[in-house]
């Protein structure tokens, strides 16, 4: 767009800020997407610890195992699982939106709800399958 010669006298409107909007599901999930992203950012430290411990030797690995095997560790791992799956499904939804599809009211609500239900469902399924497969025998 070319600059016009006549100066614009009226100030251009600014976007209204967050607090004036009514909270909607898509808005909540957008915020959750960012929060889960930030959580995964720091979650990489757990992956780094795991890999370094494995590379360092049995003693270092035993320390990591005792942490991750504790109730606290298991809870963090459970949370990590849901966070990763939720952020992944949220990303998939954004990729669909990037193609310009899924913006109708029904579609976007459905996509958003599918992300939430999908992430919770898959997390429970994964942990259920994991417990069945491992069977506490190790």
């Amino acid at each position: 767009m070319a600059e016009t010669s006549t100066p614009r006298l009226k100030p251009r409107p600014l976007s209204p800020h967050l607090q004036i909007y009514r909270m909607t599901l898509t808005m909540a999930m957008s915020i959750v997407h960012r929060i889960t992203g930030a959580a995964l950012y720091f979650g990489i430290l757990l992956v780094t610890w795991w890999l370094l411990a494995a590379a360092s030797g049995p003693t270092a690995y035993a320390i990591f195992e005792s942490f991750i095997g504790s109730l606290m560790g298991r809870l963090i791992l459970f949370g990590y699982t849901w966070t990763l799956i939720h952020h992944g499904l949220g990303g998939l939804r954004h990729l669909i939106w990037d193609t310009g599809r899924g913006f109708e009211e029904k579609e976007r609500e459905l996509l958003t709800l599918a992300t939430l239900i999908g992430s919770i469902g898959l997390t429970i399924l994964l942990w259920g399958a994991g417990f069945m497969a491992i069977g506490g025998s190790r």
Partner: protein
Amino acid sequence: MSAPTNGPRQYRTAARRVRGLGAARTGTSHFIVQRVTSVALLVLSCAFIVIVVALTGRNHATVVQVLGSPLVAILMLLFIGASIYHMWIGMQEIIIDYVHDDAPKFTALLANTFFCVLTAVACTFAILKLSFGV
């Protein structure tokens, strides 16, 4: 940067803003890379989850053997690389959304870069050590 004051002089077109390369000085390339890594991560995260589940509760010797095997090591390296690149851009996005003053913004951006480089090198080193021994 200080918030732009409203008025005719501050009016900038979309093209001008892009040429200015945005608050982090890197333009739209990050937007694209973020999507490329996200597509890769949809697949690599699944691989990562399978690897973690398969190794949960295994003893150290087994974990070392599996993580050091070519297929698993390559998938882990790709997962780490795509994840941390994606994380780096994502956190930068968050920082430039909420931190507007120069000093804290560039400090946070620097910390973000250091954190990502550090974790990437540490993870890569660990996987390579598991693969090649010593």
